[in-house]
């Protein structure tokens, strides 16, 4: 393979995407190439409609890869919440349904039970959807002993509506509804959903991941796969919280947003597995 590359090409850290270059790349078409990395099979060949630097596209890629690797595409039904995270549901080549704000666990329950537990049902929910309006729904779904999987996109704010405070917003973080920064007096504290749910009997698996480096992405993929596996094995509820960047809410560039996650969010929300059981007594 011959490739002429200009020395002045600037690449984005982490992703290696070209930011600017003076000449176009010339690739010799005749040379046989091998695909080593591509779109997961269960994803449509569509562009995402998310903002630059948003990590929800990555989260869907993650889900897609997990579904492919577990070979469960034909058995999955996805439930999308309300928010930007739901926009990815159309990307997956599986049956999908949109739930009302906060109600995804119930919609998933309805689907799972009415098909007598056969399909693998997962919800993708954001922090407004799951931690605010849908907190009670989530806890009660776990408490009912449902066998579902929830992917929780925590980006410390409401991206879709223009950057308001979420229950997961960090202390002192400035949002449009906390113009002075989130103060505990009046606005309370960031909520740790993965830890909270881990205390419940019905939980089989609860973990938190981030996507700030390839290593973390791989870890997250492993975690999501484990979560699906818990549902496949019928152990109990499985839950994965994924810290993700929302540059418009953070009012930062994509790169700065990732750095901010590393410096601030990881400190408040430690990564790790909070519960992992093979059988609920």
């Amino acid at each position, binding site marked *: 393979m011959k490739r002429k590359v200009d020395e002045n090409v600037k690449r984005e850290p982490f992703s290696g995407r070209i930011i600017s270059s003076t000449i176009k790349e010339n690739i010799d078409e005749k040379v046989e190439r091998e695909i080593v990395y591509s779109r997961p099979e269960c994803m449509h060949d569509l562009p995402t409609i998310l903002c630059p630097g948003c990590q929800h596209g990555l989260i869907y890629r993650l889900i897609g890869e997990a579904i492919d690797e577990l070979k469960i595409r034909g058995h999955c039904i996805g439930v999308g919440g309300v928010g930007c995270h739901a926009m990815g*549901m159309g990307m997956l080549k599986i*049956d999908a*349904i949109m*739930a009302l704000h906060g109600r995804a666990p*119930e*919609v998933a329950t*309805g689907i799972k039970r009415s098909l007598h537990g056969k399909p693998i049902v997962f919800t993708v929910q954001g922090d407004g959807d799951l931690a605010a309006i849908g907190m009670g729904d989530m806890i009660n779904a776990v408490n009912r002993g449902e066998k579902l999987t929830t992917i929780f996109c925590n980006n410390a704010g409401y991206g879709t509506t223009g950057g308001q405070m979420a229950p997961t917003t960090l202390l002192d973080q400035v949002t449009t509804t906390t113009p002075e920064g989130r103060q505990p007096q009046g606005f309370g504290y960031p909520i740790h959903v993965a830890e909270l749910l881990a205390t419940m009997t019905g939980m089989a698996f609860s973990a938190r991941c981030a996507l700030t480096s390839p290593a973390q992405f791989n870890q997250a993929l492993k975690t999501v796969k484990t979560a699906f596996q818990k549902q496949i094995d019928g152990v109990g509820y499985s839950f994965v919280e994924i810290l993700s960047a929302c540059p418009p809410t953070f009012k930062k560039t994509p790169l700065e947003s990732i750095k901010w996650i590393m410096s601030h969010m990881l400190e408040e929300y430690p990564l790790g597995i909070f519960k992992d059981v093979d059988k609920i007594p």
Partner: protein
Amino acid sequence: MLEKRLINGNEALGYGALYADCRCYFGYPITPQNEVVEFFARELPKVGGVFVQTESEVSSINMLYGAAATGVRAMTSSSSTGFSLMQEGISTLAASELPCVIADVQRGGPGGGNTQTSQMDYMQVTRGGGNGGYHNIVLSPASVQETFELVQLAFCLADKYRHPVIILTDAIIGQMQEGLELHRLDFGPLPDKKSWALTTVGDHDDPGRFIQNAPGILGSYRDYMIRITKKYQEMTEKEVRYQAGHTEDADLIVVSFGSSARSSLWAYHQARKEGLRVGFIRPITLWPFPTQIIRAAAQHTKKFVVVEDNLGQMLRDVQAAVQDKAEVHLVGIAHRHLVTSSGMIFPKTVLQEVKRLI
């Protein structure tokens, strides 16, 4: 021989659903419809069905949304204040055009109100309590047997139009016991659900189906609106149901639904026995409303009495139907026999009013 039972209206709701092959129920206890929840908790596991006691009415309606999306027959039930909580969900079911059945066993309102009977949810169910100006077919039974039959009809209509259907009963119909003859009603063939239901793509190279709760966000909003306008038009033309007696030669016509219709029916029969020219109309579908029969009757009958246990909600539909051609009077909540929430409109009160007006 058909099986006969002495049973209350709430359990008849349950039997109706079982005879309509509904095998999924999601519900939350609220007086006066607890017997429905308890019926399904007891009976559904025996037939391999799914019963989930939810944590709130908001959950009930959203579980129903999930179940209906898989193409199975499913239902939920609640009572007035819980039903208010379901409005967003019902609006969504209408938006997503999913077939399901929702029963509202009315109690006193507004808001928390009380646990006794009333008929105050008329506006809420017929005008779309949720946003977006959708319409659901509303069936209003007046006896235990009819509750049983209308639930079966409701499932048929839901599947036929791919739309939620509401059964509106009340604490009196729900709690009273009557003889019930169990039999299965056959309404003929129904459209196939295979083209849209979420049942997982299986091993095929299917790109996956998508059920959208927001018709305006993807695709053509106008197509959606044209489709539902046609659907509502078709329902209005084909699905109007009512019971009528002596509307041709009446000086006065009593219009009433649900439990009030029972009081009114007695008053109507009694009045006829006494030689008074009284007619009777009982709308069975509250939406679409039997406007035509009332409008036709108003050409020669100059007095109407609406009997309903509220401040006058159906009254408005009757007024709209008569178009100033006749007087419309109300026997409403002020005519109850007691000041407490246990008050009822008695048949003799209706008869008195009828005699006074004639």
